[in-house]
């Protein structure tokens, strides 16, 4: 009796796969004004990332209820890991763990949009340039926006500085949240620091290829392409309570208010990081 049911399931999969191919080949899909292609993201990018997220990093997510079910919000996280995998894993957490299956719209540095292929993938997966007009436009369109204010200082820091938040730049992200009156959701990510422990940075080589740094890790460049395989650390992601920006909404242009709020967000994330690290005594545990 189970055979026809199995057959049905198989047939449905084949049918939906073919329909997907037909839609893609004939261009019958929607892309938003930032270039986000939800169908491609859900059907192609996310299944690949899910392997890393679930099976390789065994990611656990805490307090996902702090992420609003609807409306715009600015998700602010700590950045690390030499390659910005933490940003991608955070998009998986927002999509897979939240009941509303929300898409996190990442903000990327300008060099992401300078590079061929990378820029195309970034736009298709919903990212855009980290600049205030784009952030405000996304927030006003009620999107979740993900930002890592440490930028390269976070991703490119040495392994000995792990889980120490770097400076938060000018706090442009805060003024965008204030101007659009959308809440800030702090998030702490533990696990990304151990995937490519950065032992050194060969500055001349970095300058040669136009990258912000040239990483030396225990496996890269010694093992060649194999060195690109991230170490299987255990990941924890915790969403903090949303910070209401309504009370400061008219102070978006006041540097003191912006710095204060940015500092508050930074300290909240640092505090959450310490708590999470206690929950994870072994970086490569189960």
């Amino acid at each position, binding site marked *: 009796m189970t*055979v*026809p049911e199995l*057959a049905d399931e*198989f*047939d449905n999969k*084949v*049918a939906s796969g*073919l*329909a997907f*191919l*037909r839609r*893609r*080949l*004939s*261009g*019958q*899909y*929607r*892309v*938003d*004004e*930032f*270039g986000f*292609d939800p169908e491609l993201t859900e059907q192609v990018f996310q299944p690949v990332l899910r392997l890393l997220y679930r099976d390789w990093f065994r990611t656990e997510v805490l307090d996902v209820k702090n992420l609003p079910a609807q409306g715009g919000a600015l998700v602010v996280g700590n950045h690390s890991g030499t390659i910005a995998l933490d940003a991608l894993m955070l998009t998986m957490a927002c999509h897979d763990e939240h009941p509303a299956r929300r898409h996190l719209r990442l903000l990327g540095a*300008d060099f992401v*949009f*300078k*590079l*061929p*292929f*990378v*820029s*195309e993938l970034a*736009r*298709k997966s919903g990212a*855009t*340039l980290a*600049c205030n*007009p*784009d952030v405000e*436009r996304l927030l006003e369109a009620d999107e979740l926006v993900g930002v890592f204010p440490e930028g390269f200082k976070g991703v490119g820091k040495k392994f000995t500085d792990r889980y120490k938040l770097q400076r938060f730049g000018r706090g442009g992200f805060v003024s965008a949240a204030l101007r659009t009156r959308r809440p800030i959701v702090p998030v702490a990510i533990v696990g990304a620091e151990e995937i490519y422990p950065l032992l050194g940075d060969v500055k001349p080589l970095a300058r040669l290829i136009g990258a912000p740094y040239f990483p030396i890790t225990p496996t890269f460049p010694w093992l060649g392409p194999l060195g690109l395989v991230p170490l299987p650390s255990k990941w924890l992601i915790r969403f903090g309570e949303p910070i209401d920006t309504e009370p400061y909404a008219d102070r978006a242009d006041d540097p003191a208010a912006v710095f204060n709020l940015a500092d508050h967000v930074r300290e909240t994330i640092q505090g959450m990081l310490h708590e999470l690290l206690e929950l994870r005594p072994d970086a490569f545990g189960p």
Partner: protein
Amino acid sequence: MTAVDTGTAGDRVRAPRVVIVTGISRFLGATIAARLAATPGVVRVIGVDRADPPGELRPLLRGVRVHRIDLAEGADELVELGAEALVHLAVVSSPDGRGGRAAMKDQNVIGTMQLLAACQQMPSLRRLVLRSSTAAYGASFRDPAVFTEETEPRATPRGGYARDILDIEGYVRGFRRRNPRVTTTVLRFTPFVGPQPDTGLLQLLAQPVVPTVLGRDPRLQFIHVDDALELLYRSVVEDHQGVFNVAGPGTITLSQAIRRLGRIALPVPEGILQAAAVYGRGVNGLRSLDQVDLFVHGRVVDTARLTERYGFTPRATAEAFDDFVRAQRGDAVLTPGRLAETERRMLEMIRTVRAGRVS
């Protein structure tokens, strides 16, 4: 690029009695001139171009007095015509063969300067409408995803057309400062689309094999040519002071456009396209740096101001583009019909094979 916008919505509606339209030897100019000539209240329409209108446009121009003038050499003879409105469409986006880029720049920049000099001497002039382009925003990887009318270009664009547009808009801004009594409307159009492949971009896309930039999939926007005409028309018969982005809302990517047309993309590294555009004759129809820049960075603009002030929403980019797709279907390699048929056959085949195995 600062857009000063103090203008009121188009409430003071009175058609101008005498209108000058430049660029009437092309479809847009001839069509708008014909429509204005048929508008009650418009007594006379004067068409200006440096070339004679081609045969197929002549029927449109029956009610239009055509002046053959090369604007770059002066526009004094337009001064005494008592024009109340002037529509400046003689801005070309690519060299048209006669004289190449130098002639194009003369026509665009010097022509506009001469025309504006003539406009200053027309006491009757009430409205000036300029055909501009979203090329005014330049192209840079540091650009925001969506341009509003206030966005400044990051750097001087390398494309000739984009540079011309910046110069022309600069002169028009100056004219506007000196002549506050003239309502000045600057329409920044995205590329036009309609059933006919009559722009450089559409001709490029209509080829069986379309060159693209390796590793880039730019976001494109189009305005349906019928909507462009409607907005131009309203700009002449109503008052709309300011700068406006004119585009169909939403976007389609270049790869999507090529797939909808059933064409095949040929990805070429940016450096090669660039070198071929500068030193050679381009790659398969892709000839100018303006086009290379568009195919690298794409361009999407915000149309909230247009919709609000004109009370008119152009049809969406995807919808407008489908009008072109339907007209080009004959040459398509992969059509939705063929794909759907292939899909049905494959499913049937799989079912037959499986049915054979189960029984």
